[in-house]
């Protein structure tokens, strides 16, 4: 019994925070399932089981209490984020490997909950895309939702030529980076079977699902508006300026904001408080830097999406950003009436 004031406590807990994050992911996941089939759920299940096993083993090795940490929900949040960044038809062991990297290396080797300087899910994504670039870019075509065929891809022999497709971001980048194709943004976006809508068929709806859940998190005060607003704002502005300067070469803000992992990143990845900035101004700088790096890697880099690498790069800057953006405290704000 704590015998010091305050004797009243708000009924808040890490568990409630994490469960709210999981709940906020549901609308996006539902749309994801609609377009890409139940394999999404299978990936999430594989990742969740792996995460809980890895968490248990690591807690036992570190001689920590199992119950409070296993039930805090943080491992599940990491697992879901890893699963949502993998192609739904990726082989099962890819999800297992990713989650192990996230939980064992990025989380527990750095000291467990609250201690990791890097976003665990993004560490996993970066490791996987560097090690298995091909597997990580084999997305099922939108509408390929045949569960049997998907499970064959996940657990059995992979023979996917007919059903695999690049993501809209990947397809656009490949086309624009191939000189002999003489592609233009409007040409690619207008022609390709992957496209047709704003952020790629299906993708913009998934993004809107994440946006819905993210706004709910803001309303629930689990996250503040700073990071999503600065991230989406900067990504939109960078792509707007570039597309105005050269519309054939650079896709516009609507495409960039509604495609790939932008919305997931804005509300669920960049907002990880442990590895991100915490001061109001720091959050704006952190998210703006993250968005700018994302855009640069997307447009000029060799990888289909840039959020993961940008997140790790910005994670490094967090102590510096936080230190130099400390808000003025009561009575030290300068002007007095």
């Amino acid at each position: 019994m704590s015998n010091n004031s305050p004797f009243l406590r708000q009924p808040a807990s890490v568990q409630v925070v994490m469960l709210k994050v999981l709940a906020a992911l549901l609308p996006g996941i539902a749309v994801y399932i609609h377009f890409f089939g139940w394999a999404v759920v299978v990936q999430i299940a594989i990742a969740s089981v792996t995460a809980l096993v890895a968490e248990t083993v690591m807690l036992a090795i570190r001689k920590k209490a199992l119950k409070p940490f296993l039930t805090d929900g943080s491992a599940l949040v990491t697992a879901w984020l890893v699963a949502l960044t993998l192609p739904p038809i990726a082989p099962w062991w890819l999800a297992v490997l990713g989650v192990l990297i996230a939980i064992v290396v990025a989380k527990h080797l750095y000291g467990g909950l609250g201690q990791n300087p890097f976003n665990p899910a993004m560490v996993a994504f970066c490791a996987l895309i560097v090690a298995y670039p091909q597997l990580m870019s084999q997305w099922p075509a939108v509408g390929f939702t045949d569960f049997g065929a998907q499970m064959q891809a996940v657990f059995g022999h992979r023979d996917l030529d007919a059903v695999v497709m690049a993501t809209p971001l990947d397809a656009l980048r490949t086309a624009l980076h191939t000189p002999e194709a003489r592609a233009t943004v409007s040409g690619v976006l207008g022609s390709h079977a992957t496209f047709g809508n704003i952020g790629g068929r299906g993708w913009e709806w998934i993004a809107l699902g994440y946006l819905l859940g993210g706004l709910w998190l803001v309303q629930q005060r689990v996250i503040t508006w700073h990071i999503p607003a600065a991230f989406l704002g900067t990504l939109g502005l960078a792509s707007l300026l570039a597309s105005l300067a050269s519309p054939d070469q650079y896709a516009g803000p609507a495409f960039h904001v509604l495609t790939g992992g932008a919305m997931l990143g804005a509300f669920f990845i960049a907002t990880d408080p442990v590895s991100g900035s915490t001061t109001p101004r720091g959050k704006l700088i952190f998210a703006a830097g993250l968005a700018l790096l994302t855009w640069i890697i997307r447009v000029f880099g060799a990888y289909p999406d840039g959020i993961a690498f940008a997140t790790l790069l910005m994670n490094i800057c967090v102590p510096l950003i936080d230190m130099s953006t400390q808000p003025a405290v009561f009575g030290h704000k300068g002007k007095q009436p």
Partner: protein
Amino acid sequence: MRPLFGFTGGVKPASHKTESNQGGIVVAPLPPVLTVPLRQNAGLASRPLVQAGDRVLKGQAIAGPGGSISVAIHAPTSGTVRGIETHPIPHPSGLLAPCVVIEADGEDRWIERTPVDPYALPVEELRTRLRDAGVVGLGGAAFPSFVKTQHGPTQRIETLILNGAECEPFITCDDLLMRTQAGQILDGAAVLAHIAGAQRIVVGIEDNKPEAVAAMTAAAQRAGLLVEVVAVPTRYPAGGEKQLIRVLTGIEVPFGKLPPDYGVQCFNVATAYATARALLHGEPMISRLVTVTGNVERPGNFEVRIGTPIADLLKLAEPKADTDRNLMGGPMMGFALPTLDAPVIKATNCILAGSKAMFPAPGPEMPCIRCGSCARACPMDLQPFEMYWFSRAKILGKAQEYHLFDCIECGCCTYVCPSRIPLVDYFRFAKSEIRAREKENEAADAARQRYEFRLEREEREKQEKAAKLAAKAAETKAKLAQAGDADDKKALIAAAVARAQEQKAEEKPGVE
């Protein structure tokens, strides 16, 4: 209508005011023995004026001010002084301290009371009277009020703020006082404003006390005083001095500065009432209103004499069987009383009985996830989670850089923390650690100074001794030269050797 400024942060716990503010004020019976601690105010303890066996009258001074920041203490009833005894006082550690113990004679006979017309006396005289009437801040800090009516040459007091916010959950003694004694409160406030030289009075009351706001507004109109009664939004800790000043005037008084640096001074409504009793009625501070609430059958407000055992007071409210702790003060900033033997003192605004059901133990403490809830709840705009990092690691310099000492220990951060980290405890620890180190440094400095002084003294004595010896040698030489005679010489040398030996023997024990 005055524009309000608000403050960032704060929390809104359930207020639990209605339990205790529905009934009237009950006068607590006179206990057979009263234990009046000699230290009741912030600053220095009072100096006893009575001894065992003395007969005292109600309102008679039993202790005088023990320094410049100290006030008098008075017998709460008539009776006989049993003695000055060490006795538990209300303190988180169960501290024992000297108390004047008075056996009541049951007659409750007043000393002669001398009301004054405050507007006919010089303000210095009024301050002395306030001090000698034992008036201290009754909001909880018990700082001598007469000191707060003064200001330095670079300071000024234009606005007197009357604090009726009472933002802590459960406590309603100020609410009841404002409902029943609004006129006296404003009379006292006017006197305080007169002494301090303030031109206007602003009363801040949280808007969850509409009856108090109405009573104070009506009293202000009746008296024709230039008083503004302002209902401020209910949000803990709106009654914190700095927060209330901010809400009413927009001024933020930083750590290390005082309200008069910004033209403001703040008094609790009960302090204003005590001022009126002291000067307009000649009654020193011998009782106060105390809320007894929480896990009790009959919560309410009691007019209690200083020195009444808390156990006696609590009995009046009939604590429930499962009561497992009793707090002095509210649930946000109060402390658990280790013993109910301790008496009610001037700073006692509330006795709050608690149970496991009322204050459930928080879940297991988890690591900080830097979610920033604490920073959003902090009314001082601090970053508690950063201070926590450094306090926990005992990197105290860094904790201070993050404005540790600006923390007012209101408890909002601990209240909201999803990891259930007792953040304020870390800050209290870090502050006391820093103060202890400063004390140590001061002690070391003093020791070094003493040592250097001793070296200097020893050096000086050595030189003086050498000079004396030289003078003596010269004298002897002169004598020898005069004497010439061999026998005389021998005798002189023998005498000198004997003296030297004597001196050596004398010096030996002193060798260090």
